[in-house]
């Protein structure tokens, strides 16, 4: 592809300017076209040459899911571990994609000049290096979150995207999920929660086991050293090391704190947090917290909001979800594909449509199930826009997010999580780690959310 998104300027605005201005004007509540659009026609979709750097567990998911998108052809995979190289190439071969395999991304970028886009799913600490190299090589990039484990790295990514004019989508996939868009519309347009005063989010997951590797498949010590790892354990369990990762707050929390920022239309002004490495103490060298409990303070247009977020790695109690609590109701939503409820306050003025709405019992209370296409609007009718999104909403958010990226590469629509947006989240999340470290309330600088 040449000049992939030259025509994405809208009425004299660049795409980013449009996104920013639209968000500022509250237009983002209006559902984007992609959410309603049917999937691209298989026969008409323009073929995109794609490579992946880092086809590990998450990378392979992105890879296999993107294969369901018409017009995607993988031409290369890149990983320093031959096991991953072979595994990914094997999967692609099953789909009829014969790919070139690389150990070094630089060689791949030299050899694969015709690439249109690259998926970066390497450990967090390499996101900046890989993404920037790809952007500078003229490729569009889909990079897994957290976009970087340092704010500096994230900033350089935003700048690279801006300077090269190439697309950089960060993997906060909830932003491409129509269910979240529908919930946001209910909050903003239908005012179903009244005034939001608090939010809550959690990602509790069961006790983690170490990631291992098959006997005889270890990387050689010199190879590990060449790529910045001291051991196979570091390479496989990089999420627990500060030099490779932003820790559980970045790894998991960034998904949900991103939703706080998005739904509240604001960035926090301060955060206080507590946490530590309390449980996984037997593995030497690991230094990231295994639990963090944080409170963000927002000043929104409607008033102050306090947002509590916790990430625990020792219990799956409650799983993962986000809650927005207002004086007329509470919204509970999750990207698990199932959870989506509105709990109306008994004292809230009853909407005309409430009696008709389908209710389920949740936590001992009646809840209105958040069903795309079925939840009634304030006018008592089924939301026609929501009904259009029904098919899309049933799909995995990550697939939708990829589809959004590839559509944008083809010049069809805008990115839902461009680098600037993800940068705000990155700044928000990394500050919590700092708050834990310092053991005090930490305030954000006014310009801290802009790269």
């Amino acid at each position, binding site marked *: 592809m040449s000049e992939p998104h030259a025509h994405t300027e809208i009425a004299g605005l660049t795409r980013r300017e449009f996104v920013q201005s639209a968000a500022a004007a509250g237009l983002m509540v209006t559902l984007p076209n992609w959410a309603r659009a049917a999937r691209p026609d298989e026969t008409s979709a323009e073929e995109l040459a794609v490579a992946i750097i880092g086809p*590990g*567990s*998450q990378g*392979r*998911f*992105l890879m*296999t*899911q993107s*294969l369901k998108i018409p017009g995607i052809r993988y031409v290369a995979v890149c990983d320093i571990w031959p*096991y991953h190289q072979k595994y990914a190439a*094997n*999967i692609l*071969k*099953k*789909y*009829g994609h014969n790919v070139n395999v690389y150990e070094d991304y630089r060689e791949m970028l030299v050899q694969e000049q015709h690439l249109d886009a690259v998926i970066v799913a390497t450990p967090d600490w390499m996101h900046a290096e890989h993404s920037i190299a790809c952007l500078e090589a003229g490729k569009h990039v889909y990079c897994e979150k957290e976009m970087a484990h340092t704010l500096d790295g994230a900033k350089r990514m935003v700048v690279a995207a801006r300077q090269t004019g190439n697309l950089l989508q960060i993997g906060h996939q909830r932003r491409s999920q129509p269910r979240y868009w529908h919930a946001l519309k209910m909050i903003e347009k239908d005012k179903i929660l009244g005034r939001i005063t608090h939010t809550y989010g959690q*990602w509790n*997951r*069961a*006790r*983690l*086991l*170490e*990631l*291992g*590797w*098959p*006997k*005889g*498949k270890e990387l050689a010590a010199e190879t590990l050293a060449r790529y910045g790892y001291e051991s196979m354990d570091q390479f*496989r369990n990089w999420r627990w090391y500060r030099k490779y990762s932003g820790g559980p707050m970045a790894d998991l929390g960034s998904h949900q704190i991103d939703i706080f920022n998005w739904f509240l239309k604001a960035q926090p002004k301060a955060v206080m947090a507590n946490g530590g490495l309390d449980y996984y103490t037997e593995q030497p060298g690991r230094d990231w917290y295994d639990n963090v409990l944080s409170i963000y303070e927002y000043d929104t247009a409607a008033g102050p909001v306090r947002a509590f977020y916790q990430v625990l*790695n020792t219990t*799956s109690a409650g*799983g*993962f979800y986000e809650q927005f609590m207002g004086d007329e109701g509470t919204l509970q939503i999750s990207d698990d594909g199932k959870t989506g409820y509105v709990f109306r306050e008994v004292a809230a003025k009853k909407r005309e449509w409430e009696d008709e709405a389908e209710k389920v019992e949740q936590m001992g209370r009646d809840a209105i199930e958040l069903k795309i296409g079925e939840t009634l609007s304030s006018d008592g009718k089924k939301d026609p826009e929501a009904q259009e999104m029904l098919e899309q909403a049933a799909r995995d958010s990550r697939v939708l997010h990829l589809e959004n990226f590839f559509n944008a590469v083809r010049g069809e629509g805008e990115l839902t999580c461009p680098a600037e947006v993800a940068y705000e989240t990155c700044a928000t999340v990394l500050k919590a780690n700092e708050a834990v470290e310092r053991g005090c309330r930490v305030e954000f600088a006014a310009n801290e959310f802009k790269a």
Partner: protein
Amino acid sequence: MTRDRHVGLMFAIGLLLMASATTRANNEMLEDEATSGLLKTHSRAPYVHRLTLYDHDGTAIDPTDDFAGPYSPRMTCGKCHPYAVISQGWHFNASIPHAPAGRPGEPWFLIDEEVGTQVPVSGRGWRGTYAPDVVELDHWAMVKQFGRHMPGGGYGEPDDEAVRASDKVIRWFISGKLEIDCMFCHSAGQQHDPAVAAQQIEVENFKWAPTAALGLAVVRGEASKAPDDWDPLMPPDPDFPERSGPRMEWDLTRFDPDGRVFFDITSRPPNERCYYCHTTQQVGMGAAHPLAPDQDVHLAAGLLCVDCHRNGLDHRIVRGYASEAVERNDPDLAAYSCAGCHLGVPGADDPEVVFGGHYGAPRPAHRGLPPVHFEKMHCTACHAGPVPKSNMRRFRTALGHGLGLMEREWPNSAAPLIAGPLFVPLADGRIAPQHMARIAGEVPPPDPAPLPNDEYTEAPAYVWALGHNVRPVSQSWGINGCIECHVQGYIDYGKPRSTDGLVPAAAKTMAELRGDDLALLAAWDFGFGFRSTFKWYAFACAAIVGLVIVRRVGDVLVPARAAISGDVDTAADENASRSSVIGIVCWVLAAVGFIWQAFTGFGPNWTAGAVSGWPLFLHMLGAGVFILGLTAVVLVAPLRWRADGKTSTGSRVIFWITVVLAFCTMMTMLVAMLPLVGHGGQELLVDLHEYSALASLVAVVVLIGAALNERKARR
């Protein structure tokens, strides 16, 4: 045996002989090619299989490695056995387009009891079955539906093209291929548990199934719940533990210090291995008493299933039906059909095939059984399956009902509804007992129709062979005489009606189904009521004729002696007028009987090539008149000659020759009615009957000519 059968048999034998040498040479060549370079012992002593296990990538398995994959039969067993050749074998080739299908066999049944769907499914193209793609079952769906009784391979191992064409690319990648699990059949004992394999297949742990079934490892987790991005190196998903995918815990006690595993293997699979997939059980009304069913008589004699259902390296199992040798262009296979083994294959190239008698198979005499039975029926009609009753029975089968898997409730009414025995003609026109299952569901009617007469079941039905259990001789149908079958209501083996909905109440009888002439059947039934009486009568007449022949042999020359000596019997003149009336009656009776038999015998034989149907019945009916006429004329003719003294010696000689030939014609059939002569003897008697009858005909013509000449001379 009819003339056509003679010609057809000779032609077939000729073709088979020509094909025999070529086929055997080809088989040997293929086997040599397939095993070229592979390790072999060529000993009858079994090789002790103490093996290193290899995973699906061909990597030797170290059970102490947390990430060691399940063992791959292709990579492990395939080190020494030609997997590619074996995968073309009978148990694995149903998914291969245009693979030899052979006689219709038991299909899979696509069942939905709620909406009443019962559709026979097979990739073999058997008449009346539906191809999997017609009922929207791809390879994945076939394995999911029926993998519980698949030994792997075939549908479980689609090629890359088939995988890509499906919407299950990544699921195949996660679940792996369901490779041929050699131990499914070749486990010498109970080391391998096919039910465990079925459990693994149900949760889509395809490539783990052989390992789990062999008990080499305990497999936890389900590929069916693993997400598309499942990573075998990842620990259980902390957010969704149930999505963790399969993981294994090896039984380290099964590995020797060098990491090898002992496989208890046999090349002659025990019957119990076969039974997992090939169990058939009568249930419901009319089923045999729980204590009644015996083993198949062959198994009771110590044989294994595989002693008849043999295979070579190509794993093309001998199914053992009559036309298999011709269909597979391998004359030697005829030795393993019922008839081939018990009667031998005349004219075969290999003497062992000519002799038959494998494993000491007895040669049945079939004494007193007219050869027409062998032309009309397969061996199984009398020897296999449950003894026919007036109603069909319901069956449960392993493939149809999932026998072999543990359940608490086994309702007799569970679908598929399989009934039997249904006696219908096969492609060769001979009747054999069959299983039957109606076809129901939103599917187009099968084309061509699976049964000769679709009105039979109102809904179309699929039928397939009912070959087991083979009953002992003492329980053979007809062992107690002809009337066991040939009485009213039994010749058609009853009306296959049933009270549990197997077939509509208005179903026709099997005779109607076959298109038999019901009036003719009724006539036969009526006739067989007099069979015993007829035998007494016929043998009495035969005794008289025989005695007269003996007595009168000397009399042939009496008139000549009288003429020389002038000794004329004057008393004869007194009786002449009285005996002439009786004599005329006798001669007329004999003439009528003879002409009747000649027309009903030679007529159809010369015009249609065989005597059957109504002509045969009329021929049998005329036999009584013929015998009576012959007896009478034998008694009166000498009296007449003595009375008129004008009959020449030549005429007398011709007369007695004719009588002897007619006597032979009569006796060949009368002897055949006694339980004295076996299968070959019966055919010989039929041939002698035809030849003596023909000779009789010639003799009668000569006799008439001689009589006319004498009369003319006297005038």
